[in-house]
C-alpha cells in the first residue's frame, strides 16, 4: 500500500464516495427541476470514475514510493487547534504562546528562550493589529 498512484486514485474515489453518499440524503429531483442533491451526486459520480480509473491504471504502472511524516503534520494541526481552543476558553495571548511553544516542536532545534521572544513579539504584533487596524482579537 505504499504506491502513490494507487493511493491517489483511492483518495479521490474516497472523497467522491463521501460526497456522493451524502448527496443521496438530499432531494435529487429530476433533470428539469434539480434538487439540492442532484449536482453533488453528478459531480461525485464523475470524480469516482476518475479516481477508480486512476487506481486501476496504477496497477499497470511502476509503483512510486510515498513519503508521509505523521509527526510534523500532527504537531502543526495540534498547535492550530490548541490556538483556537485556548483563544476561546482563556484568551488569545495564551493561544499565541501555545501556538509558538507547540509548533516549534517540529523545528530543527528547540529553545525555550527563543520561543519566549517569538511569543512576545507576536503578542506585540497582535496588539498593533487590534489597536491600529481595528481587528477584533480577544487578546485578554
Amino acid at each position, binding site marked *: 500500500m505504499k504506491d502513490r498512484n494507487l493511493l491517489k486514485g483511492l483518495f479521490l474515489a474516497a472523497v467522491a464516495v463521501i460526497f456522493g453518499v451524502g448527496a443521496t440524503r438530499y432531494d435529487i429531483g429530476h433533470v*428539469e427541476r434539480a434538487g*439540492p442533491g442532484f449536482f453533488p451526486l453528478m459531480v461525485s459520480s464523475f*470524480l469516482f470514475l476518475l479516481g477508480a480509473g486512476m487506481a486501476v491504471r496504477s496497477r499497470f504502472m511502476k509503483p512510486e514510493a*510515498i513519503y508521509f511524516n505523521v509527526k510534523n503534520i500532527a504537531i502543526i494541526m495540534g498547535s492550530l487547534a490548541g490556538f*483556537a481552543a485556548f483563544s476561546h476558553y482563556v484568551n488569545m495571548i495564551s493561544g499565541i504562546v501555545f501556538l*509558538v511553544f507547540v509548533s516549534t516542536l517540529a523545528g530543527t532545534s528547540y529553545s525555550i528562550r527563543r*520561543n519566549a521572544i517569538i511569543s512576545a513579539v507576536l503578542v506585540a504584533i*497582535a496588539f498593533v493589529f487590534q489597536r491600529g487596524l481595528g481587528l477584533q482579537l480577544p487578546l485578554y
Partner: protein
Amino acid sequence: MEIIHNLAFGFGHALTLHNLMFCAIGCVVGTFVGLLPGLGPLATISLLLPLTFSIDTGGALIMLAGIYYGAQYGDSVSAITMKIPHASSIVACIDGYQMTLKGKTGLALFTAGVSSFIGGTVAIVVLAALAPALGEVALKFGPADYTALMLFGFVCVSFVTTGSLLDGLAMCMVGVLLGQIGTDVNSGVARYTLGLPFLMDGVGLVSVALGCFGIAEITKNLDSREERTPFSGKIKLMPTWPEFKRIIPSALRGSVVGSFLGILPGGGPVIAQFAAYAIDRKVSKYKDEIGTGAIEGVAGQAAADEAAARTSFIPLMSIGIPENAVMALMMGAFIIKGIQPGPNMIAQHPDLFWGLVASMWIGNCFLLILNVPMVRYLLSIFKIPYVVLFPAILFFCCVGTYSVNNSLEDVFVTAAFGLMGYVMLRLSLDPAPLMLGFILGPMLEENFRRSLLLSRGSFTVFMARPISGTLMSLIALFVVWQMTVFVRDVRKARRLAPA
C-alpha cells in the same frame, strides 16, 4: 476623441492634491496589510472600509480602489516569497515561488510589479473605451453560457497543473464538491454541514487557501529539515535587458486576456490568471521553462490579474452586477456613499466614474514607485531563520482566518484543510485547480440548474446557444487534441523503450 476627452476629464478630478493623497494612502496601507500572509484583498478591504466613512465620496472611492490594488500586489508578494496565496495570486505561487527557491525573488517581485503596471494600463484603455458598450455584452450571457464559460475555465486548468490533465480535472471536481458545503441557494437545504451551524455559510475561501497552500507548505518545509537561507549576498533587483525583454510579450498577452475575461461576470481575476498562464505555457518562446521559475510564468499572470481586476469594475459600474465578493464589497461602499451602481452611474456621476478610472492608473504608478524600492526591505524576511519564521507565519494564518468572520471555528477549519493539503501534497496532487473549482463551483451549480430549468431538462441548450455552443466546441476540440497528444506520447514512449 471622446475617450481622450473623458480621460482628461477624469484626470482633472483625480489629480487634485486631495484625491492624490487618498489614492497614495490607500495604496500604501493596502500593500502593507495585503503583505501580511493571511490577509487578501477581500479581508483588507473589509478591514479598511470603515476608514473611508469620514471621507467625501470621490476621495473615498478612489482610496478604496487604491486599497484594492495595493492589497492585490501585497498578496502576490506573500505568494512569491512564502507561497501563501489568496484568490488573486494562486498562479503567482507556481513560478514565483520557484524563482524564490532559485534565489531570484527580487526579479520575480520586480516582474510582478512591472507586469501589473502594463496590465493595468492596457485595461484602463479598454475600460475607458468600452465600458459603456461592453456592459451590454455581459447582458447577453445566459445561464447556459455561464455554465459553458466555467467548464471552459476548468479545462484551461489542465494546462496549469503540474501533474496530468486528469489529476487537474479531478482536483477541480474536489474543489466543486467542497464548494457544495453550506446552504443550497435554490432550496435553502443545508448540505454537508454535519449539523455545525458555522458551516451553514460554507467553508471560507481563506481557510481553504491557507490550509492547502500555506500550512501544507510549512509542513513540507519542516519535513525536509533544511535551514532555508537562499540569500546571503546582495540581492539583485533590476533585471538585465534580456530579462526585461522577456517580460514584455507575456505581460501584453496577459493584459489582453485579462481585460477580456475581467468583463465577463464569473470570469474575473481568477480565471484570467489561469488562462494567461495557460497561454504562456503554449505560445511563449520559453515555454519549456514555465513551471520551473520562468519570468513569463510570473509576468503573464500578474498582468492578467491586474487587467481583470480593473475591467471587473465594468459589469459593476455599467449594469450594477458585482461579479465577485470583492466587487460586492465595493458595491456596498458605493451604496453607503449614496450611489447606486448601474447603467445610470456614468451619466449621473461622470466625475466619479472617470475620476475613478483615472485614479486607478495613478494608483498603479504609486505601486510601481513604492514597490521597486521597497522590495529590498521585503526580502529581509528571509534573513530570519525558518525556525523563527514558521511559528510567525502560522500565527498570521490564524489571525487571517479568524478576522474574516471573527470566528475561531474557522481556525479549526483551516487546520483541517491543512491536513488535507498535506495529504494532497504527498500524493502530488496540485491544489491550484482545487481552488478554481471551489471558487467557481457554486456559480457553476446555480447556472447549470438554471439552464436545465429553462430548457426543461434538455441538455441541447448548451449546444444551441451561440456563445455556449462556441465555448463547448472549443472544449471538445481541446479534449480531442489532448487525447491525440497523449496517444502520440504513449506510442513514442513504447517505441523508445520496447519491453
